[in-house]
């Protein structure tokens, strides 16, 4: 647990810094008021508008932990919103809760199916995940526009709008929905053995296979869940605006989601993942956007911030960079051995590491080369 907390320390610090900056720049940033039985305020806004991102980032976390990636979530967001809106519009009474429920169910089912398709390509046919999900990323928005016939479909359905606008005990539904999804994911992954299997397959797929874990099935399921999460996010986004926009709904959200996962400390190389980290990552990304709004900076320059964050996070995850940064601080110490381009790592016969006589502990003599 200690290691877990330490890994979350950096993102937590970033978040605190962001909030502090906000507090200084915008008086009343932390103010939360209740109007008409619903909470309002900048913090609530962050959670409310960050909900779709968080939903997608949760699904993405599992996919990335399994050494995959899903570029198509933005397109799935568009498809899901489009399906839901079209069904509601076509229904006899758009305001009947039954019609809305049916529409949402259909949208979610289709989203899960699209996720399955990704999983089939990536895990069963073993096409590189970036390539496999690129197909749907390209075609998905076309599909969404096909469904809405290229229009921005607007719905005037109270129950549907309510998904985004409503609240329970003053807490917006969107925030509740995100919280429930976090809880469900946490229970599914950490209260069953699934999380262990995911980390084992992501950490060492061959070892996991030889231990009897069904790696392929797990990956396919992960993509399906990721699709489902994206579908849910699509509903929230579309309910928020009361419309389905095949072109712009969820645009670039896949990139934000990947960013959130990476900030949360889950490595793109797979293995250990952190749901708490992803939650934190998503909140940071959303806070960044909100900060820019509330501070009156042109909102577009948020992109430059984001770029800087991407580079900083990537560099912090790069062992070579860390070694370079750390080197001056180790007084009189040797330059840390650089991997990668510095030359092939020392390998003994047949690629196993040299442990012929020792027991793998670093030999102090070796450090001084």
């Amino acid at each position: 647990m200690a290691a877990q907390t330490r890994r979350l320390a950096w993102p937590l610090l970033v978040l605190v810094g962001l909030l502090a900056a906000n507090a200084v720049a915008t008086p009343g940033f932390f103010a939360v008021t209740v109007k008409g039985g619903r909470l309002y305020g900048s913090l609530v806004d962050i959670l409310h508008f960050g909900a779709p991102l968080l939903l997608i980032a949760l699904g993405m976390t599992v996919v990335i932990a399994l050494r995959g990636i899903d570029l198509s979530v933005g397109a799935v967001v568009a498809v899901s919103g489009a399906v839901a809106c079209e069904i509601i519009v076509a229904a006899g009474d758009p305001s009947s809760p039954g019609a809305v429920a049916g529409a949402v169910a259909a949208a979610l089912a289709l989203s899960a199916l699209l996720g399955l398709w990704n999983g089939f390509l990536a895990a069963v046919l073993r096409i590189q995940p970036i390539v496999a999900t690129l197909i749907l990323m390209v075609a998905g928005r076309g599909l969404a526009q096909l469904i809405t016939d290229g229009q921005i479909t607007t719905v005037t359905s109270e129950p549907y709008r309510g998904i985004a606008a409503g609240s329970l005990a003053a807490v917006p539904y969107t925030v509740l929905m995100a919280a429930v999804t976090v809880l469900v994911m946490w229970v599914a992954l950490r209260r069953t053995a699934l999380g262990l299997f995911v980390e084992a397959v992501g950490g060492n797929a061959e070892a996991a296979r030889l231990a009897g874990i069904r790696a392929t099935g797990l990956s396919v399921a992960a993509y399906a869940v990721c699709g489902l999460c994206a579908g849910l996010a699509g509903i929230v986004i579309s309910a928020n605006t009361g419309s389905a926009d095949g072109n712009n709904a969820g645009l670039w959200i896949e990139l934000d989601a990947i960013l959130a996962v990476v900030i949360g400390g889950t490595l793109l190389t797979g293995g250990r993942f952190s749901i708490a980290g992803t939650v934190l990552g998503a909140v940071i990304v959303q806070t960044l956007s909100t900060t820019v709004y509330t501070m009156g900076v042109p909102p577009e320059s948020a992109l430059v911030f984001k770029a800087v964050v991407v580079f900083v996070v990537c560099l912090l995850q790069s062992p070579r960079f860390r070694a370079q940064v750390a080197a001056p601080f180790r007084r009189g110490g040797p330059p840390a051995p650089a991997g990668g381009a510095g030359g092939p790592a020392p390998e003994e016969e047949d690629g196993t590491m040299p442990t012929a006589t020792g027991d793998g502990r670093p030999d102090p003599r070796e450090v001084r080369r």
Partner: protein
Amino acid sequence: METAAGPAVQMSGIVKDFPGVRALDGAGLHLEPGEVHALLGENGAGKSTLIKVLTGVHRPDAGSIEVGGRPVAVDGPQDAERHGIATVYQEVNLCPNLSVAENVLLGREPRGRFGISPRRMNRRAAELASGMGLDLDVTRALGEYPIAVQQLVAILRAVDLDARVLVLDEPTSSLDRDEVRILFGLVERLRSRGVAILFVTHFLDQVYELCGRMTVLRNGRPVGTFTTDELDQRGLVGLMLGEQAGELDRVEGRAHEGAPPPDEPPLLHARGLGREGGVAPYDLDVAPGQIVGLAGLLGSGRTEAVRLLFGADRPDSGSLEVDGRLVSLRTPRAPIAAGLAYCSEDRKAEGLVADLSVADNLLLAMQAARGWMRPMPRKARAELVERYISALRVRTASPDTPVGALSGGNQQKVLLGRWLIMRPRLLILDEPTRGIDVGAKAEVQRLVAAEAEEGTAVLFVSSELEEVLRLSHRVVVLRDRRVVSALDNDGGLDVDGVLAEIAEGGAR
């Protein structure tokens, strides 16, 4: 080609340390122009490291290298090529997507008026090929040719470099007999031109067929250099494997008195299991409580044979029955369900998940068998982990320590523990004592013997014959990717007997 005076390569007193281990300790090599020289040794003897020092991949910590009589410091593979040292690796290090001609000439492409001239390049490569007696369409992509041809192309590249020294690092391990023939023809041509050739292989027949002299390494130290006339195969195998007696505190005498009664029905019953390029179809029976040792040199098909039993690789032929029931070998799941367990030889790549904790690694197989819906209760989990950590004497700061932080011996015990927790009926161990310290080695051996006492069948692969003889009831010997004999270890069998089988078994 000029005949250089003196040795082509003279390496002496080479020392190379890696973290935690001295891979080379005073190793040396003496290569004459126009000779084919074998470099021999078992796994971990330091052959690859010595080659990598020669080709500049590793810098030696001590020792000297002379090439053509001049002392040199080789700085990387490119620098080695400048010194006239070319290497052909076991895994072909060429680009399969480029044409044969490009692979031969990449980096030295002949130019025409408009940049690189493909016409000239193809002509030059074709000349080189035909000069070596090879009939190749050099415009084809390299990847369209079989591995054997790719090896030959790699040699052609070395020829074009005008190499004075050619290092062949296990070039024949994936070739069939005819392909080996062609390769040898090419090597012979180069030798007659005065090129010094260093040949690394596990196939001893090939050594005696091709090489004049051989240098043997063991544990990073030189054992000696011999001519093929003065040392026969059996003597060579003895030198390579060495004496390991007295190194360990012994498991009480022999672990067992002879084989179990023959009328007991076998637990494991394999018939005709085989895989193209892995191991020829073989039969194997193992009874409950019986320990069967698999002996043979590296590359003899030992590992391949046991992997088939576990479904780690899918066999092309044959069947496996456990307790009379047919077991599907498509994935390891059915064998695991039937009570089989397999500890891979390559702990890091195929055994442990380095990032996960000791506890998670210990329980991985058991949890996989229970299914994801039924996580182990926290208390049962802690108890089981506690029990096995202490029973196996795993030295770890806590059960939550990432297993990658443990020493090799303790990692091996965790991997063993993962399967012992399953209470397996047949335990398959591939080199369970390799790369771990002496104390841990003795503990692992004791555990294996104790398991068998309790009725678990054990199948284990080891390069150390002493260990095989001390532990097993039966010894199965492999050679050249086939099972050549199965010997009862009933007191009459000794190291010499097994050595004879490893060196010559199946040759008659």
